């Protein structure tokens, strides 16, 4: 059966080029980079080369990169480590209602540690408006964490402006750039952020590795204590092949430049227009322009997401409804609800996220398969008047 992968926001296929550089470090060069013998030192060199490549993707310095086990750990590290190390400033944290659970839940958890947390509302597109932050920020605000690009609807926040507001107030600014890195330019200097999270498996790199950028001079506590790895900021024997793969994935992202972005934008346009033409009673969610390329988030009235996904799967199409991480949960997406979409409509959400290997045929196939699926489900829906 034909298969079409349209779930690149959940995870991306590992680039064979990335695999090529990882492979020699999986079996053959298995050495612990902290050992003193020459083979270990060579592994250490490769780890440091990878760090430089990741730094370069973000326009950071290598010393500003802490490798973590993924985006979730990077977010936890930034929030817990950043807030605790700077609690002298105050014990107030600000985040937004559209954050990934790795940020939102981690912030809320800090309430147990005596922090107060403000969850900013977002507008109908999922954006945090600068004036909302202006109003909520206080002298005691130690940390502001607002995502760069949303994983469900793709909306991009104006991080530069938001970071400026935080800095004017003397607060740290962290952004979860897990969905941004690899899709749009991520320049920590230009954004002016203090901390920024990335996950390799969202940019054609391996799973189990990510990083936190920490601007030089930023005080943060480590999350994992133990051996002095990662400049004492993240203990644990380094996941060497994954780090090396992440480095190569970062390098390939740089090499691709805006070419990939344009290719994906072209496909996305046809996908959107095709859906709009073929299927009535739909609502596209997310910002119409300020959006990462390739993310088509759409709600089909009268029907429910999981049913759609399973019927699509029957035809070899892989997509998601709401966040991949909460796909087992029965609640409607907190992101869509935060954007003011009703439960009923939010339940009918479908996220199609394009990636570098998608071709026009994939989009055409989706456009052929999706309309009858929506129609089939609508016909058995008690909410659909057309069916009565």
């Amino acid at each position: 059966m034909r298969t079409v992968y349209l779930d690149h926001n959940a995870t991306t296929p590992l680039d064979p080029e990335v695999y090529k550089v990882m492979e020699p470090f999986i079996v053959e060069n298995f050495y612990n980079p902290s050992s003193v013998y020459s083979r270990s030192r060579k592994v250490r060199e490769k780890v440091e080369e990878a760090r430089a490549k990741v730094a370069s993707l973000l326009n950071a310095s290598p010393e500003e990169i802490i490798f973590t086990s993924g985006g979730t750990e990077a977010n936890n590290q930034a929030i817990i480590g950043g807030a605790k190390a700077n609690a002298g400033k105050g014990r107030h944290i600000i985040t937004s209602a559209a954050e990934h659970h790795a940020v939102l839940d981690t912030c809320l958890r800090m309430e147990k540690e005596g922090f107060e947390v403000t969850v900013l509302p977002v507008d109908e597109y999922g954006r945090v408006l600068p004036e909302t932050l202006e109003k909520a920020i206080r002298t005691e605000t130690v940390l502001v964490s607002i995502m760069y690009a949303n994983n469900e609807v793709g909306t991009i926040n104006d991080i530069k402006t938001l970071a400026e507001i935080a800095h004017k107030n003397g607060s740290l600014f962290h952004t979860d750039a897990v969905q941004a890195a690899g899709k749009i330019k991520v320049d920590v200097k230009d954004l002016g952020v203090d901390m920024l999270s990335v996950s390799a498996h969202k940019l054609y790199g391996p799973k189990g590795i990510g990083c936190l950028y920490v601007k030089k001079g930023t005080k943060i506590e480590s999350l994992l204590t133990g051996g002095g790895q990662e400049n004492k900021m993240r203990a644990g024997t380094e996941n060497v092949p994954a780090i090396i793969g992440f480095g190569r994935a970062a390098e390939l992202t740089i090499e691709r430049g805006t070419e990939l972005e344009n290719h994906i934008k072209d496909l996305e346009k046809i996908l959107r227009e095709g859906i709009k033409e073929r299927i009535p009673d739909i609502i596209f969610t997310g910002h119409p322009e300020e959006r990462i390329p390739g993310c088509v988030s759409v709600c089909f009235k009268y029907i429910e997401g999981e049913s759609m996904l399973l019927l699509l799967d029957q035809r070899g199409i892989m997509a998601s409804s709401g966040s991949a991480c909460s796909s087992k949960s029965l609640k409607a997406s907190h992101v869509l609800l935060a954007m003011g979409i009703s439960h009923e409509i939010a339940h009918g959400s479908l996220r199609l996220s394009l990636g570098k290997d998608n071709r026009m045929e994939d989009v055409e196939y989706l456009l052929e398969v999706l309309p009858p699926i929506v129609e089939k489900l609508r016909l058995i829906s008690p909410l659909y008047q057309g069916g009565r």
Partner: protein
Amino acid sequence: MYSEKVMEHFLNPRNTGTITNADGVGEVGNASCGDIMHIEIKVNNDVIEDIKFQTFGCAAAIASSSMLTELVKGKSLAEAEKITNKSVAEALGGLPPVKMHCSNLAADALRKAIEDYRRKFAKEGA
């Protein structure tokens, strides 16, 4: 995740739609919890002669509705009322624990439809 039986019923749901001049109509659930089940029955001599459903919900909800209609079609009202949400789930070869709540609706909707029928019938009979 789902048993073969669940998938089979989900992909080919039995008895979907509505009944013209249904004798009883039942609906449970609401959109905020993610599932709505609507059941219509045609009753003759205390036997469910026809039954149709419409469901807004996940695969488990659709399959449960479909299975329920199969289980009760041709059964007496008394027998049909014995059907529990648990027996629907069992007939489907089990549901994932996280989805058990979805099958909770089908039998409830049927019960409401029977109640509705009884109410009308009682009136007519009176």
